[in-house]
Each structure stands twice: as C-alpha cells, then as structure tokens.
C-alpha cells in the first residue's frame, strides 16, 4: 500500500455556529491504523469537530484531508462516497427508533452491499454478538437501557466494516466490565480489521487503555493545547491544565491564572 502515513489531516480548522466560535486554528494528523483520542473538558467542542469530520458541519475555515483529498471541497457525491468508509457512533446512540436493533444494524448492509438476506442476518448476529447484545436483535431501541443503546449504536457503526470509525463517548454510561470489553473490542477491531479509530472520550481508564495518539482541546483558548497519546500527556505534558485533567486533579490557582 503506497499511501501516505496519515489517513486524516486537519489543517487550520475553525468551527463556529454563527458568531459563536467553538474551536479555531486546529491542526492535527491521524495516522493510519492508530486509535486517536480527542480529549478535553465538557463543552469544548469535541462532538462538533467530529461532526465536521463526518460531513455534518461545514468548517468556517481550514481543510480536512482524507488520504490527501480535500473532504469539503468535493461535491456532495464525492463526500457521500468517502462517507461510506466511515462508521459513526453518535454520543446519544442515534438509533433509528422505528426499527428494531437488528434492523438498525442491517439497514446499511441492505442499502450498500449485495449480500442476501441470510448473510445479512448472520452478519447482524456477529456484530451484535461482538458488543454483547445478541439477545436484543428484535428489541425496539426505546426498550433499551442507555448503555445498551450505546452498544447497539456501535454495532451499527460496524455494519459496513468501515475503514474509519468515529466513536463519540463509546464507554460513557457503561459498567466497568462492559467498558473494558468495549476497549478490547476497539483494540481488536483496529488490529484485526485495520480500521483507524477516532474516539472522543472523557473516560480516562479507557483512554489510557486504547489510544495511542491524540489531541487535547481547551474551551477557553478554543484550540488544541497539547498533542500526543493520553499516557504521554499525563506524564510529560508541559501544560499543567492538561496534566491535571489526565490525573483527575484540580488545577492549582496559580496555574489557573497562567492559563486564563
């Protein structure tokens, strides 16, 4: 494979809702086959960045490159074509409420593959089995618990065996054992299927367990303030705020002033 090392590059990205700037002048690279963490305090714009990478929010400034191709200057058709390689888990699950869990997972396959009904059923069983929801095939999303909805959303994100997985808070709302299982699943998906995974998360334990690269966003300065894997940020980051976040500590007042 003679492709560039970074699968996704973000250059000088500014995101805003009207006049309200969420993040500005962001740049980072996501290596092929890595698990990349987008970290930062609540409300700093992690989900918003994810939305702009999956084509739901046009950036105000800057470019997003997939395999060297500019994502946002392409036509809608080109973007849809690229989007078929994405698997997305939304923060709230975003299951289609009128379909059962099994149908949720099956729908992308019915739309975009030539598989017959029996094969689709087998693959649905595999994907639900991977997230531990085999029993819920015929359940309606409204009858699932919050954590189960997350897992069903992940199974749906895996439906088309995506090259790039975007996971918004995959382990929020899960018990420690299930959360651990999610981490294993994420690691094995990367190792086995060669997927590149971008994960938005606060859960420190799972960040340390899975992510091998990442970016830390700040809500006050509205830009990236640190780059690197969660473990290096915890141990060696120059910014006290980042170190404190990664160690679940309070920032000391003196530092806070330096930050503000």
């Amino acid at each position: 494979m003679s492709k560039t090392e970074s699968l996704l590059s973000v250059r000088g990205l500014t995101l805003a809702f009207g006049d309200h700037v969420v993040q500005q002048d962001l740049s980072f690279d996501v290596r092929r086959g890595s698990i990349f963490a987008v970290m930062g305090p609540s409300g700093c714009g992690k989900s918003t960045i994810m939305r702009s990478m999956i084509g739901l929010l046009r950036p105000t400034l800057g470019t997003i490159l997939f395999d060297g191709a500019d994502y946002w200057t392409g036509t809608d058709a080109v973007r849809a074509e690229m989007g078929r390689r994405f698997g997305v888990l939304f923060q709230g699950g975003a299951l289609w409420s009128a379909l059962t869990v099994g149908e949720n997972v099956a729908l992308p396959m019915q739309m975009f593959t030539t598989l017959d009904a029996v094969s689709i059923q087998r693959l649905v069983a595999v994907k639900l089995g991977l997230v531990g929801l085999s029993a819920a095939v015929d359940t309606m999303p409204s009858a699932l618990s919050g954590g189960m909805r997350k897992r069903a959303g992940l199974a749906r994100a895996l439906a088309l065996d995506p090259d790039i997985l975007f996971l918004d808070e995959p382990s929020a709302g899960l018990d420690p054992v299930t959360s651990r299982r999610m981490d294993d699943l994420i690691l094995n998906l990367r190792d086995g299927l060669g997927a590149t995974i971008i994960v938005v998360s606060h859960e420190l334990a799972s960040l340390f367990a899975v992510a091998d690269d990442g970016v830390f966003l700040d809500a006050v300065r509205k830009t990236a303030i640190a780059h690197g894997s969660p473990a290096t940020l915890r141990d060696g980051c120059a910014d006290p705020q980042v170190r404190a976040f990664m160690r679940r500590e309070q920032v000391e007042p003196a530092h806070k002033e330096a930050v503000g």
Partner: protein
Amino acid sequence: MTAHDEAPARWAMSGAGGPCILRLEGDWLARRGALPGFPKDGLVGCGADVSLQFDIAGLGHWDSGLIAFLWDVKRAAISAGRTVDAAGLPLAATKLLGLLPDQAMAQEAVVVHHIGPLNWLGGQTLATLHEMGMISRLSGSTARAGWQFTRGRGLMRGTDLWANILDAGPQALIIVSIVNFLIGAILAFVGAVELRKFSADIYVANLVGLAVVREMAAVMTAIVMAGRTGGAYAARIATMQGNEEIDALSVIGISSTGYIVLPAVLAMMLMMPLLYLYGSLIGVFGGFVVAISMLNVTAPGYWNETVNALAFSQFGLGVTKSVAFAFLIGVSSCRIGLRAGRSSADVGVAATRAVVAGIVGVIALDAVFAVVAETFGI
C-alpha cells in the same frame, strides 16, 4: 482493503477421520458480498480426540465476513463435541471470536396469534371503552387543573397559555377565512341556481345566513382546527414522550395535565368561539359576493334579509357548539399524544390519529347538537 485483484473466499477441509485441517483462502470481505457459510454438521467426520487446525497460508484480506464464518465453525465444533485449536488464526480474529457468545440465540418459536372476528370485536370494544374512560378522566383532571388555576394554585404558566392562544387564534385566521369564504360562496352558488327558478333570489341570503351561522361556520372551523392545531398538539406531546420530557416533568411533580394539556385546551376553547364568529361573518360575506354578482339582489336588501333571518339564539347555538368542539379536539389530541409510543414513527401515527379523531368527533358531536337543538326548538 484495496479493490484490485481480489481472490474469492474459499475454504476446504482435509483429513477426514483423523486430525482435520480447515484451509482458508482468498479475501474474506463481507462488504464485497463474499460470505461462505459453514454447514452445521461440517465437523462430524473429524476425529473426536484431536482439535481442528487452521491453515491460513492463502488467506488475504478479511473483515467481519471471516468472523461470521469462524463463528459458524466454532458453534459447529461445540455442537459436535469437538475442540478447535485457534492458534493458527490471526490473533485479532481469535480475540474478536472470543467476544462472541458460544451459543447462537435459540430461535424463538414464532407465536401465531389467532385473531377470530369475535376476538377482534371484543378487543376493539374493550379498547374503545377503555379509551373513553381515559379521555373522561383526562377531561376531569383538566377541568380540575383549570379550577386550581383560577384559585391561584395551578401549575399553568401564563406564557404557555399565551403562546398557545397565539397559535390557535391569530395564526389560524387566514385558513379559517379562506375556508369559510368559500363555504359561503358555494352555498350561495348552489342556492342561486335553484332559487332563481322561482324568482326567489333574495332568499339566498336566508339560506346562506342560516346554514353558515347554525352549522357550517362552527363545523368547518372546528375541522380546520382539528387538522391544524389538534394534529400539532398530538405530534408535540408525542415527541416530548419520546424524549422522556414528560417523565422529567412528572418526576419533579409537574403534572402533564396542568402544564401541557390545560393551556392547550384552554387556548382552543377561548379562540374557537371567536374564530367561529369571525368565520360566520366571512361566510356571509362569501355568499354576499356571489349573490351580488350573479343574482338580481341589491346590497342593502341582502344585508336586511340576512339580519332578519338570524336570531340571537342561532349565534348562541354556534358559540356553544364551537366551545364543545374545542374541548373535544383539545382533550382527545392531547390524550392521543400522551399515550403515543416512543419512536419517531409513533409521532406520525399520533398526529394522524388526532386529526381523524378530531374530524370524526366534531361531525358526530354536531349530529348530537342538531338533535338536541331540534328538541328544544332552537
């Protein structure tokens, strides 16, 4: 991952009777449509005391298609009492396989419901009675919430009532005008064709006035409001139901009756009579326009005849009816919204049902009013 020169997915068993080896070849990509299955009894011929081995020398790219196949193999091995030596498989595939449960879900026997016509009728009757009971209870609690509000102990906010009033009143004016104008015009048109034969042109005014004020203005306005506002109430409340907003309200002790149903119903009951009076005026005007342009009638003559034909009691009847229609539409559409399911499709179902229930209910109630008015000689 690359599209060029893909080899088809193939598998082969060798070593029947002794140690079996399962050879996997080619690219196992489910998204390209390659998904061979493994027969349930595929391992029966293998020796029971030796594990199944894998040979993946020819294996190319793979995704969940391979996992699905290996899961079949694993379950076939379990059911045949054989063991599998996964050492030959890619490590990540083994780990993914480890996450899958050993037993596939036993397919639940499909329960066949026998729905005889009698069962169906009984079920429908019970459901209808239950629904009527629920609507009566909701009406009762809405009335009680209204009473509490007048005593200053209610939980309705003025702003909610005001927003509902704006929506049910001024914003409905245009459509109410159009419908009533056309109804008046149509009545005059039909009447004109017949009455002209008897040179009774001027009685078009009586016909239009009575029909509009007694029946059409109230009924048409109510039907418009059932479609426009009743449907919106049901959809809004059903959406809140889906988002657990109603649950959030009831947890902190805000009853959905006082907070949502009462302002909606009250706004409709306040606005509907006004819309009815306005609609009557427009309807009479519609008849007037047609009569003046088609018939041998003067403008003052038409107005005189209209005023003579109408008694105050006709308006009283119309106002009473429109208040009753408003209550019926408001309570039934809120009730339909409150009992809606939690999916997006349920919102659509609730809106449709509210509109249908509103229109049918209004016409049925109007029939009752016609009989009652006849008995009392209004």
